[in-house]
């Protein structure tokens, strides 16, 4: 709505020449937005590199990357749901639930590692499917369906694990999923952990799915006008369930990442992670009212969050002030995104 009352002050001049045309291509709204989305991130990084001498060291950059992995993957999962104008509060505890299920198959049952991986993703998809059915078939608002799922899964993780962490010591190679560095083995100067590699692979796959496939197209259409999509003869419920299922499966990957990183499934962890993930998505320019969004934006949003937290820690800012600053920056980042859009 807002940009309908677009003040016309920035309107183009009539009679553009060839030069103007070239300029227009470079400053094409879509291109410009993507470039500008980096701006907040870069501003933050420049600021912190002045504020803390160690900030730009490779080790620290790697650890920023590493710390973005879990939130980044969760944020990608959320992006799909949010583009459909839904919301998913269960991503954090679902991640934990998947980690616990991997633990059940690997540690309790002693099955081979790939079964554990498959189990995490399968149970993620299964729980996503349940949320999807609640939302699509029973018409329960996503906020409530996933709030309920959040609590349900939190409880189940504790029940299944007996409120004890499940360790993966008996599954050699499990911790490598997240902690080893395939890239580092090839290029020693870039000791980027696999978790980050997985984040980027998931992001690329998600980006392709969102932009190049029918699944992605329906994701946008659902968020834009569900009824119109239904009346176009599309099985809206099916696709909605599919989107939640897919998003759940991605949470399963996040579960593997965190379990592998901690070499254990920590059943009590997870609540609160959903807010970080949603914040990343929205900072990245995806609208909570649905119909728009990009994976690239989400990734940038996730990096803004982790750079911010890392930088404040590097500056040894007191924790209570870290919270204050994070709150302010979240608002600011989204505000800048809004200004950017309005200008177009």
């Amino acid at each position, binding site marked *: 709505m807002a940009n309908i*009352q*677009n*003040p*016309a002050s920035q*309107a*183009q001049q*009539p009679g553009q020449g060839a030069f103007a045309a070239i300029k227009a291509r470079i400053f094409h709204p879509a291109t410009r937005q993507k470039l500008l989305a980096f701006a907040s991130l870069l501003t933050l990084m420049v600021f912190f590199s002045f504020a803390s001498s160690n900030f730009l060291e490779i080790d620290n950059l790697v650890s920023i990357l590493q710390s973005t992995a879990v939130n980044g993957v969760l944020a990608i999962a959320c992006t799909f749901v949010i583009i459909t104008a839904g919301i998913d509060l269960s991503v954090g505890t679902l991640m934990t639930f998947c980690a616990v299920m991997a633990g059940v198959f690997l540690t309790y049952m002693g099955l081979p590692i790939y079964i554990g991986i498959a189990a995490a993703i399968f149970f993620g998809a299964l729980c996503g499917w349940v949320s999807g059915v609640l939302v699509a078939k029973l018409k329960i608002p996503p906020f409530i369906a996933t709030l309920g799922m959040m609590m349900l899964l939190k409880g189940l993780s504790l029940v299944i694990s007996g409120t004890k962490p499940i360790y993966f010591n008996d599954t050699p190679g499990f911790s490598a999923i997240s902690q080893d560095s395939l890239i580092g083995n090839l290029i020693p100067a870039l000791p980027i952990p696999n978790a980050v590699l997985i984040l980027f692979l998931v992001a690329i796959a998600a980006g392709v799915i969102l932009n*190049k*496939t*029918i699944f992605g*197209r*329906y994701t*946008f*259409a659902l*968020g*834009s*006008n569900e*009824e*119109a*999509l*239904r*009346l*176009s*003869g*599309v*099985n809206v419920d099916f696709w909605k369930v599919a989107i939640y299922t897919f998003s759940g499966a991605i949470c399963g990957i996040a579960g593997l990442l965190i379990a592998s990183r901690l070499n254990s499934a920590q059943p009590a962890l997870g609540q609160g992670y959903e807010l970080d993930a949603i914040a990343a998505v929205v900072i990245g320019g995806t609208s909570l009212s649905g*119909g*728009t969004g990009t994976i690239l934006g989400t990734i940038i949003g996730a990096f803004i969050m982790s750079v911010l937290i890392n930088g404040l820690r590097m500056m040894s800012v007191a924790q209570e002030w870290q919270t204050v600053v994070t709150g302010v920056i979240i608002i600011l980042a989204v505000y800048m995104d809004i200004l950017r859009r309005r200008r*177009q």
Partner: protein
Amino acid sequence: MQQSKNPGEDRQSEASPPDYIMSLENVTKRFPGVLALDNCRFDLYPGEVHALMGENGAGKSTLMKVLAGVYPKDSGEIRIAGQLVEIPTPRAAQALGIGIIHQELNLMNHLTAAQNIFIGREPRGRFGMFLDEDALNRKTRDIFERMRLDLDPATLVSELTVAKQQMVEIAKALSFDSRVLIMDEPTAALNNAEIEDLFRIIRQLQSHGVGIIYISHKMDELRQISNRVTVMRDGQYIATVPTATTSMETVIGMMVGRQLDNSGAQAPDTSGNEIVLQVKGLQRGAFIKDVSFSLRKGEILGFAGLMGAGRTEVARAVFGADRIDAGEILVHGAKVSIRSPKDAVAHGIGYLSEDRKHFGLATGLDVKTNVAMSSMNRFLTQGLFLDQAAIRDTAQGYVRQLSIKTPSVDQPVRLLSGGNQQKIVIAKWLLRDCDILFFDEPTRGIDIGAKSEIYKLLNTLAEQGKAIVMISSELPEVLRMSHRILVMCEGRITGELSAAEASQEKIMQLATQRDDTRVVQAA
């Protein structure tokens, strides 16, 4: 510059004579990528009905929104009673005595009709703090009585049909007692009886010296109601002419810049063709009562009736958009089970909704996605990926074929004018290539040029062997296009007329043929 372009114009004086109640000069309004108003002008006398004409996207609504304080103008002058004014907000417009009925419905669905009408001007009770709901309903009832509208002020707007909602919008505009009243396609959703009521009200306002700006694509209305006509094209002012002394062909010529072919095609005989769709004993609550009909290949079947007759309901039910209580649907002679629009589309049935904003378009998405919306499967490569280039080409093809006015196929649909949006819905169903097509008010809000294109299109589709149901509240249109006409009243089919025997009178008679029990009540 304007004058040199429009030698036919009869009022050339630069300054606004004091008798204008309102005048606009050189108003320009630019949207990103679109020059919506280009040095446009307009003026209005008290007590006149001044029609504003132009093709879809000509800038009519934009001009009116500038007047109503919705959009700020980029440049230009607005005078009210000779006084130079700025209109930055809707509130300012109200204060200046400008009332508007917007082209799109702008109602709060969760509030009652009365609450909508007096929003922002609620009567207060004791202490000026609490709302006086009784006074609110009383005042609303007064307005409804003036309009001869039979509606309970306390009904929730969400429970009203589009037509009734439009009446509420009209009531709201009337309640302001404005000096200038803008009506942007007020009759698009109304039937003849309601239109008559509206015209009666307009004449009444006229006699009280209210100046009325009237936008419509229905030519016959202009004849009936307007004193002068101003034509716009591409955001520019073209000319102003007195209605009485100007032929409609001239006006249309100024609008589209060419002559239109208006000959009604001779209805072909389709009675021997294969029956592609047969509906038997369709039943849905109080809305559809035992509706049966059949549709032949190559036929255009008109559905006529008054507002709320149940035509939309029938189409939605056949299309699987609503559950039905009873009834059989046969496609190509075989009984089919249609539980959702998906099933309907799979059986080759398409439905163009009468309410494009809510049911037809994902307005936040771009033109090409909307065109491809129900045919995505067709653009799959390797069963997974979408062939973006093909989608784009296809969409561009339709933009050209239907003369859709849009900067590109990447433009979000919500930025297009109403008529162009309608064309995109049509493109969507053309692309889907269904054998059976329900067109529900296909020309609602469409300009005369585009209308004749759509008529041509319908005829072509019929010639190609498609079976078409055309629901329309414009009788001339039904009469002109249909090979056969079904008339509905209160959820039943009250009669069938062949193209040859049909006339406005006959249709109206069937359309008001109520149930016996009800006739007593109505009398």
